[in-house]
C-alpha cells in the first residue's frame, strides 16, 4: 500500500537533488558525480549502520526477557535499526513489496516471543511487525520528501538570483 508513495518520493528526492546540484555546480561532471556519490553514500552508510547494529540484535536474540515478552517489539534499538534500514531506498522497496505472510529469511521476523504457540498469533505478530516497518519506511520517506522540497525551493531561489554574465560584469564594474 505504501510502496508506490515511497517509491515516488524517492524518485522525487533524486530529481530535486539533481536539480539543485545542476544549479550549484560549475560543471556537469561534478554535478553528476556528486549525485551518484550521494545516492551510493546513502545506501552504503545505512548498510554500514545496520551492520554495526547487528551485534545488538544478536544480543537481544539470546535475551531471555525478550523471548518471553508479549506483543510487538517496540524496543528503541530495534526501531532505530529498522529506521536506519528504511532510509536505504532499495531496502525499503524490498521490504514494502513483501507479502504480509511471505516466508522470509530475515531474522527480524523470526524473533517471535516464545509465548506465541498458535499459528494465528504468529501470523498476527508478523503482520504487526511488517506494519511497523511500513510506517517507519513511510516516515523515512517523508524525511526524504522534506529534503526534496527544500532542494527544490533552494534551486528555484538560486536560479532566480542567477544573472547573465554580461550583467554580472556590469554590476561588478568590469566593463
Amino acid at each position: 500500500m505504501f510502496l508506490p508513495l515511497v517509491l515516488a518520493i524517492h524518485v522525487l528526492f533524486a530529481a530535486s537533488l539533481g536539480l539543485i546540484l545542476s544549479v550549484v555546480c560549475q560543471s556537469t561532471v561534478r554535478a553528476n558525480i556528486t549525485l551518484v556519490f550521494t545516492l551510493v553514500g546513502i545506501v552504503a552508510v545505512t548498510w554500514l549502520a545496520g551492520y554495526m547494529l547487528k551485534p545488538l540484535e544478536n544480543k537481544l536474540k539470546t535475551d531471555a526477557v525478550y523471548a518471553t515478552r508479549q506483543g510487538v517489539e517496540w524496543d528503541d534499538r530495534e526501531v532505530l535499526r529498522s529506521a536506519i534500514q528504511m532510509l536505504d531506498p532499495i531496502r525499503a522497496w524490498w521490504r514494502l513489496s513483501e507479502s504480509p505472510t511471505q516466508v522470509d529469511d530475515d531474522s527480524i521476523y523470526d524473533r517471535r516471543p516464545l509465548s506465541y504457540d498458535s499459528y494465528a498469533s504468529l501470523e498476527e505478530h508478523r503482520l504487526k511487525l511488517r506494519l511497523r516497518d511500513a510506517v517507519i519506511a513511510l516516515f523515512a520517506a517523508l524525511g526524504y520528501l522534506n529534503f526534496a522540497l527544500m532542494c527544490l525551493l533552494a534551486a528555484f531561489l538560486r536560479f532566480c538570483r542567477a544573472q547573465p554574465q554580461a550583467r554580472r560584469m556590469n554590476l561588478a564594474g568590469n566593463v
Partner: protein
Amino acid sequence: MCSTFPSFRLKRMNWPQPSEFAPLLLALAIVLATASFFLLRRLWGRLVGPVFVYEADRVARKGRVFLVRVLFAAAILIVLYAVFPTAEHLDDRVMNRFALDFSNAFSIAQAAVVLFLTPIYFAGAVSDEKEKRSFDFLLSTRLTSREIVFGKFASRVFPLLGMVLLPLPILAITQLWGGIDLPRLLAGSAATILSALSLGAFAMFCSTLARRTLPAIGTTYGIAIFVVAITLAVPPLDSFSNPISFQLSVNDKLDLLDEAESATPVVIQAVAEYAIVHVVTAGAFLLFSLLLLRRMAGRGLFSLIPRPTMAVTYQLGGGKTLVVRRPVRTHMPLPGMRTSPLLWKERHVGATVLGGTFHDVAWLTLGTAVVVLGVFAFYLDHFANEKIVAHWFVTILRGLLAVCAIYLMLGVGLNLAGSVSREREQQTLDSLLSMPISRLEILRAKWFGAFYRQRRALIVVGLALAFTLLGGRVHLDA
C-alpha cells in the same frame, strides 16, 4: 661429467640463497629508481612538459582531493575497527590472526577505493577540455601531443599515489599491536598502484575518444568490469587482471611456504609478473591516446561506428536512373512545436535514432518480462495453486522492480543534474536567462523534460509496481 661439474663448484662456493639477497636487491632497486628519477628530472620535465605543472597545480588545489583522502582514511579506520579482535585475552595467536586479517582487508579496501576513483580522476583529462570548449585552444598552442597526454596523465598519477601512501600513519599504529604482514601488504599496494596505472591509461584513452566526460567514465567502468568478469572465469588469468585476485593468489603461495622460507622472493616474482602485464597495457593505451589525440578532437565515441548509408535512386530524363548512397538520418525527426518551445526543446532535441531504438527495445523486453512474470505469478497463485513457484516469480518481479526503480532514480537525477550546468558549459545559459521567460518556467520545462525522457522507465516501473502489489498477495503459509 661435464654437466655435474658446475653444480659441484656452485655447492662448494656457498652461494647465497635468493631469500638472503632479495631484501638487499629490493632496497637497491628502490635506491636506484629514486636516484634515476632525481638525476633524470630534466628528461621527465621534457617528457611531460608544462601541462604537468599546470594540471598538477590545478588538481591539487581542488577541495575534493582533500575530501576524498579524508573519506578514504575514515574507510580504512572502519576496516580496522571491523577486523579488530573482540576476544578478551589478546595473545600472540589472536594478534597474528588479526595481522593477517587486517593486511588482507586493508589490501582489498585500498584496491577497491583506488580503482573506484581511478576512472573519475583520469577519464575527464581530455574530455573535460572538450566540454569546456578549450580543447581547440590547447591544440592550437605549440604543445605537442606527447606533452598534453603525458602531462595530464602524470599530473593525475600523483594524487592517486598519495591515496596509496595515505594509510601509512594508520599502519604505523598497528605496529603497536604486533605489526602487520609486510610482504603481503607491499604486494597488495604494488599491485594496486600498477592496476591504477593501467586503468588510468585506459581511462585516458576513453577520454581521448569521448566528447563528454560522463560517457568516458561509464565506458571505462563498463569495459574494466567486463574484462575482470571475463578473466575471473579463467583462473590463471584472474590473478593478473585485478589486485584483489592477485592478493588472494599471493596469499595462497605464501601459505604454502615453510616457516624457514622467506616470503620476499615469492612476492617479488609475483609483483614483477603483474608489473609486466600492467606496464605494457598502460604503455599501449598511452600510445593509442597519443596517436588519436588530434585525430579524435572533434569526434565522439560513436564516431568510431561507421555512419550507415542507404542507396537513393533518382529518375533522370530519358529513362536513366542515378543511384547515390546517402547517409541515413541519425537524429529523430522533431515533432511540431506547439505551445511551449522550452518544453519542446527539453523533450525532443538531441534524441538520436540509435539511442531511441536501443531504449525502445530494452524497455519493451523488460516490460514484456514484467507482464509475463506478473500474469504467471497471479495465475499460479490463484488458479493452479502452485504457491512456491508463484513466490519465486514474485521474488524475481520484485528484483526487476528494484532494478527499474534504481534506473529511474538515476536517470531522472542525472538528467536534471546536467540540465542547468550543461547550459552553463555550452555557454548558452546567458542566452536562456536573457529570454523574456520566467525562471520558474525554465525550471519547470527542465523538470518535466527530464521525466519525459524517462517515460519508458516510468511505464515499466508502474507495471512492475502493479504486478508486484497484485502478486505480493501470495500466501505461502496458507
